[in-house]
């Protein structure tokens, strides 16, 4: 893999993780939080594929990435189901309303 391709991939990874992290820190809507989490995981996926290619073991990196895609889908589904339940019980999707366990 050429050096410039590696640079592009590293930048892409950092950008995806950065956008996801910003979303997690700043966004208050639970659905958007799950979207942000997904963006972050896509960054990690890209990093896995890139690391596999850079280390000369593209098969390993890609099969790990495929595994992560499966796990990540489950996370998204469960997260969205939780969001539906939160909306039903709490009446809002604002994550600040979820701190009611404190006290």
């Amino acid at each position, binding site marked *: 893999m050429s050096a410039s391709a590696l640079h592009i991939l590293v930048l892409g990874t950092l950008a995806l993780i950065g956008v996801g*992290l910003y979303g*997690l*820190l*700043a*966004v*208050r809507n639970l659905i958007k*939080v799950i979207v942000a989490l997904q963006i972050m995981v896509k960054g990690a996926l890209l990093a896995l594929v890139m690391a596999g290619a850079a280390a000369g073991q593209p098969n390993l990196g890609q099969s790990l990435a495929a595994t992560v895609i499966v796990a990540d889908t489950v996370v998204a589904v469960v997260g969205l189901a939780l969001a539906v339940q939160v909306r039903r019980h709490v009446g809002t999707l604002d*994550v*600040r309303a*979820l*701190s*009611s*366990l*404190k006290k």
Partner: protein
Amino acid sequence: MANGFLIALVIGLPWLGALIVWRTGDTRPERQHRLAAGFSLAAALAALLLLTAPGDSPALTLALGGLFGDFTFIPDGLGVLLAAIATVVGSLAVIFSMDYMRGEAALGRYYALVLFFIGAMAGLVLSGSLLAMFFFWEITALCSYALISFNNDDPKAVAGGIKALLITSLGGVGLLIGALVAYAYTGSYQIADLLAGTEAIPPDVLSLIAFGFLLAAAAKSAQFPFHSWLPGAMEAPTPISALIHAATMVNAGVYLLARFYPAFAEVPGWTTAVVAVGLISALMAAAMALVAQDLKRALAYSTISQLGYMVYAVGVGGVFASQFHLLSHAVFKALLFLGAGAVIHAVGTRDMRQMGGLGRRMPFVRNAFVIGALALAGIPVLNGFWSKELVLEAGLAGGPGWAFAGMLVGAGLTALYTFRMVWLVFYGEPRAALHAHDATPAMRFSLGALAIGALLTWLLAGPLGHLFEATLPHHELHVLSTGELVAEIIGAPGTWLALAVVAAGLALWWWRERFRWLAAMLEPLGRAAEQDFGFEWLNARIAGATIGSAEALRTTQTGLLSWNVAGIVGGLIVVLAVLLLAWGA
């Protein structure tokens, strides 16, 4: 291998029994009693058979692989002796419970926890892997906690259980740190590798392991400054006090010190620290036993004091003396606790001020209790006499003079508080109109077996010594046959000195009216002892400070998602920075 199968039985039978008794359900109490007794007796039989087939190499290996290494089980002298004590005293305590716990609710929970404990205790002493030992160590602590709090609608029982759990878990951290550091330097969790490979460990790291283990041992064996959990543990049903808090679990600390003595003996300051811990515990607890009003608490203080003797014996290099005293103490203190249990069961109170003159109404219990008391006081031909003399002899030969003098004073105090206890409970005039009846058949069986043990176990000294010599390659032992040992003890000047001190303790009690002036002089000391020498106050302060700081730190728990994510990322950045710095250095 045959003894590997026996080890599996010794640990597995009680655990299987625990499951079966629990599944039997509390609607069939008779079957629960019989099943528990059957499984504990079978385990005791397997442990006694194991005594005849010792070895110094792993007899049973569970290859867990990876980071856990192999969980090995080694039937060496130390291990089989303590496993036999745990299962035999355990089965006697279970048989005693058949009458003591009759009619109690939640029998299934009681017996399941007792049997689970017996198996875990056997596993703790037989395991040859530090990590397996740590797991069993914590299982015994959890069982002890659950059984102290067995009457879980009594706030005192719950508080006592939590106190015991907190303090012994603190000690467990010492053991875990020691085990992990040993793994980092020797590359193995096997105890034999640590004992053989101390040269490969830098001195300061070895002393970290040694003092970590000392912390664990002091917390488990209720030694200074962690002794305060044991009196609180007396809220447990009395057979539990006899089994866990006198005969087995509290010995685990002494066992740990004895097991690793060859590795740590050369660590600067370690043996002195061990001697000091034993000495302070022995004297302080004896003073507290002298002023205690609660029969079980008096016995608990006496246990701390006698464990102090064993710790002291390890500190002066008398590994065999400490284990021999451990055997004697397990037998006579289990006898005393079960005798106390029979008394408490009959009269319904633990306050010695309300007892008195009970001997005429319960002669069997009195006779058994007096045998145990004489052994505790160190009166000749009972097992406590031989083992205590052996401890004192080891102290005179290998330890500092000031410690020996202190332990002699402790022997006198032991005699004094023992006779006070016997007198208050069984002799004199009845001080309250208490209904009393003598022990029931199952109680008589346990008491009788232990009383015979208190009279006879010292005859095992020679065979035990040879067993230790044959199977503990890293310990340097000075082994004698029973006859030679008896001759040596009788011929030693220390014995006669100790007997004179014991007689002085006895005389002090006998002519206590004439020594009123002495009692008046020591009044402030007695009051300090009643206040637990301020340790209860200190414990309350530490608990208060912990709860206060937890309350203060609650404000950092906002419960907001974005703050938590920021915390995780911040933590990750710190870890990465540390790794980068370490990598650059």
